[in-house]
């Protein structure tokens, strides 16, 4: 039972808490000869694979290092331009390391605010009256479970696919939120949650669930 992440979105749609848990780091290094057989897309922020996936290097992966030298945006750590290095034949064979891009905090905030209208539209487009928003969203690589409290706070858990209902876990997180965040006198509503006790309690809860499932869930 793998839980990839926990997100808490406030009533107004802002990300107020996020915890990454067990997110796999997907990295692959491979030696390439001239000419390069994968198509790269050179951007000022990153170099990504645009076409022709090879073994585990997929479209969308970002170039991390060239011959062990880290890539910083469009330049190498030693100041050379990635594109010029990769287009010069004398630099081959070359070792390239690719990785699936990791979400930055900014991207997470962006995604959280994106989920908010999705949730609302799902309830508006319902063919049946009195529908809630998205409670469960499944893709082939993960399942997202969402629980909205009566006050509009959303608890979102991203887990591996094929797990049953996460209701227990979501309610448990709500309980922790009510106990350790709302009762914290230094916490102001709608603001990011920075409560150490909440962090540690949530971490423990996730550990228990990953090891033994929901059966051994106690207070």
């Amino acid at each position, binding site marked *: 039972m793998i839980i990839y992440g926990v997100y808490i979105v406030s009533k107004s749609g802002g990300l107020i808490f996020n915890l990454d848990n067990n997110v796999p780091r*997907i990295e692959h290094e491979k030696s390439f000869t001239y000419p390069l057989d994968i198509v790269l897309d050179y951007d000022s922020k990153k170099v990504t694979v645009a076409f022709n996936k090879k073994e585990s290097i997929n479209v969308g992966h970002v170039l991390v290092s060239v011959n062990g030298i880290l890539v910083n945006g469009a330049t190498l750590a030693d100041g050379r331009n990635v594109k010029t290095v990769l287009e010069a034949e004398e630099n081959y064979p070359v070792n390239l390391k690719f990785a699936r891009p990791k979400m930055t905090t900014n991207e997470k905030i962006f995604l959280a605010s994106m989920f908010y*209208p999705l949730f609302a539209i799902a*309830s508006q487009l*319902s*063919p*049946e009256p009195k529908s809630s928003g998205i409670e469960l*969203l499944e893709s082939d*690589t993960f399942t997202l479970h969402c629980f909205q409290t009566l006050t509009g706070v959303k608890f979102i858990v991203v887990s591996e696919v094929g797990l049953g209902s996460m209701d227990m876990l979501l309610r448990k997180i709500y309980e922790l939120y009510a106990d350790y965040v709302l009762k914290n006198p230094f916490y102001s509503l709608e603001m990011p949650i920075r409560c150490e006790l909440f962090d540690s309690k949530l971490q423990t809860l996730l550990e228990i669930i990953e090891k033994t499932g929901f059966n051994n869930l106690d207070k």
Partner: protein
Amino acid sequence: MTVFNLYIFDKFGTLLYYTEWNRTKKSGMTKEEEAKLTYGMLYSIKSFVAKISPHDPREGFLYYKTNRYALHYLETPSGLKFVLNTDTAALNVKELLQLMYAKVWVEYVVRDPLWTPGTPVTSELFQTKLDEFIKQSSIFGLRSI
């Protein structure tokens, strides 16, 4: 209840076909507006799923559920999108959609010389065959409590 409604979009977001069976709530907007909203939502979900996914996605988004209905999504490599709303208890809807694509869409729309690709489907034969196909499926008669 059962199967509610079905949208078919092409890769540009044009609504090619819409039909409904047991829909009890209208969204209060025109069909075109509703289709645009649905397509926009699915487009956002697709990019949301691609970003939040911890592994490399293959098919990406499959379905979502609320407490009243489930929206099932099938996208072909050519960008054709089938969106079927059912009750939350329906099983194997993805297989049903794939079968519908192969047995009904390809047979009665793609092989229809009078249909111009990229325009809404008006063929009566397709409409009756689709209706038959959905009504015969196991999820149509299903009644959840």
